[in-house]
């Protein structure tokens, strides 16, 4: 037999991995062929050399190390995260295509969110904030339409804010909540009509094939219905809306993005004069008023918005949900007023002020919260407040980012990554996550990917959180950069055995399977 046919078997021959017949055939060939005999000799030598590479004993007993880590996790309800030196890697490849994958992704966003919460509710490691998350879970599981999705998304925003402001924020919990939130936003923003036809086609196939469990198919079909409804509405609005007012709304949104909130508010009010844009503008206006701590004004705008909706129409439930939040915020404001009265009589007001700040976050008053946190940082310089100060600076930066003032937020995140590393690793990790998200929001994808990846590979990031972060990276490749090849790589890794039982692993596997079809 010829050497080319024998050669591929030679390593297996040396390793004793060949079946009897092949083994005999190789032996016969070796007797006659000097070159293959030499190859066998080289292969054996390679093994022999390797065999002398001695094992090293671990420098410390892992039983002890892990015992401590497990105890820590149990106390904190999630794995602590250690900061790792941030690395900036030069890279970026661009490419377009894979529309089918994009469409599948949009649909799977909804499925994924459902899968995710489902799993998390029963998951072993993340028990913090579990009650609230379970509520969100139930809402998400019932998602049938985009307004359900928006409602769930609004509720989720509340949980996220509370988690940031909690006395023991957990990066593992936060990352997962925020990744789901991003996906929900993409799903509910799918009205741009991109690939609607493809989505419906895929779902049609799904329905015929019956490959997905009934409940999940229902969710997907519900989502498809609302994608279609949104698409039609958007088309109608585009045909109808006076161009000038449309431009005003765009301008308002861009002012808000620049962090010029008061100016944006003026524009929203102006745009609300249009029949077609009124509802949309009023909702924007209310959201902004909330952020500025003016719940009463927000409620007034929402009442106007409510009057524009009809029973069972598209936006009524969303407006109702927002009104409930504004009402709650007004209650909280009253409570804050009482606490502020107490402030005058207290000598050390640190705890009281911290409480006020957290309540402001809860009420959605991010501007007010930012001021409170700033005041706390300035007024309590003693070393006994060092850890608290780091956490408060983090919160302040987060408030700034949430009100679209990216530059100061970014600078503070940067400083915290360095300064908090040793003293308060969780805050350093959260700062890195904060920076990643800022990059992401500012469309600086390369840096965002670096930070996400870095955090994902931090040895103390929990597995579920690791999968969430990696998924986020894949998602950027897919949705933002259109680099389907790179996205597929990430999703394929996530769909392998180690992550197969993770919610984001499941989602990745589903995506890969779709793309393969």
């Amino acid at each position: 037999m010829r050497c080319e046919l024998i050669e591929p078997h030679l390593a297996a021959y040396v390793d004793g991995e060949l079946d009897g017949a092949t083994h005999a055939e190789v032996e016969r060939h070796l007797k006659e062929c000097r070159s293959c005999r030499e190859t066998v000799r080289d292969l054996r030598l390679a093994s022999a050399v390797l065999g002398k590479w001695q094992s090293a004993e671990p420098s410390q007993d892992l039983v002890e190390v892990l015992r401590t880590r497990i105890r820590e996790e149990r106390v904190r309800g999630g794995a602590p995260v250690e900061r790792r030196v941030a690395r900036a890697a030069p890279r970026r490849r661009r490419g377009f295509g894979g529309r089918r994958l994009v469409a599948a992704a949009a649909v799977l966003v909804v499925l994924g969110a459902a899968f995710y919460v489902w799993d998390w509710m029963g998951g072993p490691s993340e028990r913090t904030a579990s009650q609230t998350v379970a509520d969100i879970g139930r809402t998400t599981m019932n998602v049938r339409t985009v307004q359900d999705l928006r409602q769930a998304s609004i509720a989720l925003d509340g949980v996220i804010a509370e988690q940031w402001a909690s006395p023991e924020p957990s990066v593992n919990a936060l990352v997962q909540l925020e990744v789901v939130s991003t996906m929900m936003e993409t799903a509910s923003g799918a009205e741009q009509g991109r690939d609607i036809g493809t989505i419906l086609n895929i779902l049609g196939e799904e329905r015929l094939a019956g490959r997905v469990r009934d409940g999940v198919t229902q969710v997907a079909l519900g989502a498809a219905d609302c994608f279609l409804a949104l698409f039609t509405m958007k088309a109608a609005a585009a045909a109808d809306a006076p161009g000038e007012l449309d431009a005003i709304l765009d301008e308002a949104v861009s002012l808000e993005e620049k962090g010029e909130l008061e100016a944006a508010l003026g524009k929203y009010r102006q745009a609300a004069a249009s029949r077609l844009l009124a509802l949309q503008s009023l909702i924007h206006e209310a959201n902004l008023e909330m952020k500025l701590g003016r719940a009463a004004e927000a409620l007034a705008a929402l009442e106007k918005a409510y009057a524009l909706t009809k029973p069972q129409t598209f936006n009524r439930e969303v407006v109702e949900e927002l009104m409930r939040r504004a009402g709650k915020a007004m209650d909280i404001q009253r409570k804050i007023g009482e606490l502020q009265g107490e402030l005058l009589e207290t000598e050390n007001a640190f705890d009281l002020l911290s409480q006020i700040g957290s309540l402001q976050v809860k009420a959605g008053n991010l501007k007010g919260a930012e001021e409170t946190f700033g005041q706390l940082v300035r007024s309590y310089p003693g070393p006994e407040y060092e850890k608290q100060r780091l956490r408060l600076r983090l919160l302040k930066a987060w408030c700034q980012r949430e009100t679209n003032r990216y530059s100061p937020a970014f600078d503070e995140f940067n400083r915290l990554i360095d300064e908090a590393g040793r003293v308060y690793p969780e805050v350093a990790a959260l700062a890195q996550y904060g920076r990643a998200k800022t990059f992401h929001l500012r469309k600086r994808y390369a840096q965002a990917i670096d930070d996400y990846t870095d955090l994902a590979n931090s040895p103390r990031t929990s597995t579920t959180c690791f999968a969430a972060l990696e998924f986020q990276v894949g998602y950027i490749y897919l949705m933002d950069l259109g680099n389907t090849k790179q996205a597929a790589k990430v999703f394929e890794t996530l769909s392998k055995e180690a992550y197969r039982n993770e919610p984001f692993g499941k989602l990745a596997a589903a995506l890969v399977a779709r793309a393969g079809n």
Partner: protein
Amino acid sequence: MVKGVPARTSRSDQTDEKLVGTFVEGRIEAFEELIRRYQSKIVNFIYRSIGDFQRAEELAQETFMRVFRMGSRFDPRYRFSTWIYTIAKNLSSNELRDRSRDPESYNIREADWPQDSTFVAELVSSGTHEPHQILTSREMKASLEKAMSKLGPDLRMALVMKEFDHMTYVQIAEVFNTSAGTVKSWLYRAKRQLSGTLKESEVF
């Protein structure tokens, strides 16, 4: 009995798979027994895969933490060793991927490796061609590490599994979620390439 050393229990006779079941029920000692059985193997597997001992220790910790967190999802019909090696392999691949993205931030610059000339000189002065005598020195080990680092991640890890962890082709294939045929061709390529590099540096 020596003070502080616990008496051997029947736990050490249990199979790995049984131990997973026991620690999932809340018996932490069973998990600790698994660590004892595998810590050296996993640390060394990762070390030989990524070429950085300190980092390998961190990643080994992470491997065990994942075993701990995901233990309840382990299906006892499968082999525990396949599972733990899959986790360690994935962590090593991620590490290697990160390094290839940004080699500057890692300590694997050419300059850090011993020069081949030193190596050859030592080889000559040692006056022997018996590999086990040559490769006792630190420099030799470094040369081997360097030769290994030239292999692609999958080839390299499969080779380590075969040569050091004595896994069969089928077991390796399970870890990589691929066929035994693929593993066969990887190992052939890996050993050919390795012997080529070692020949260039005149190890044999």
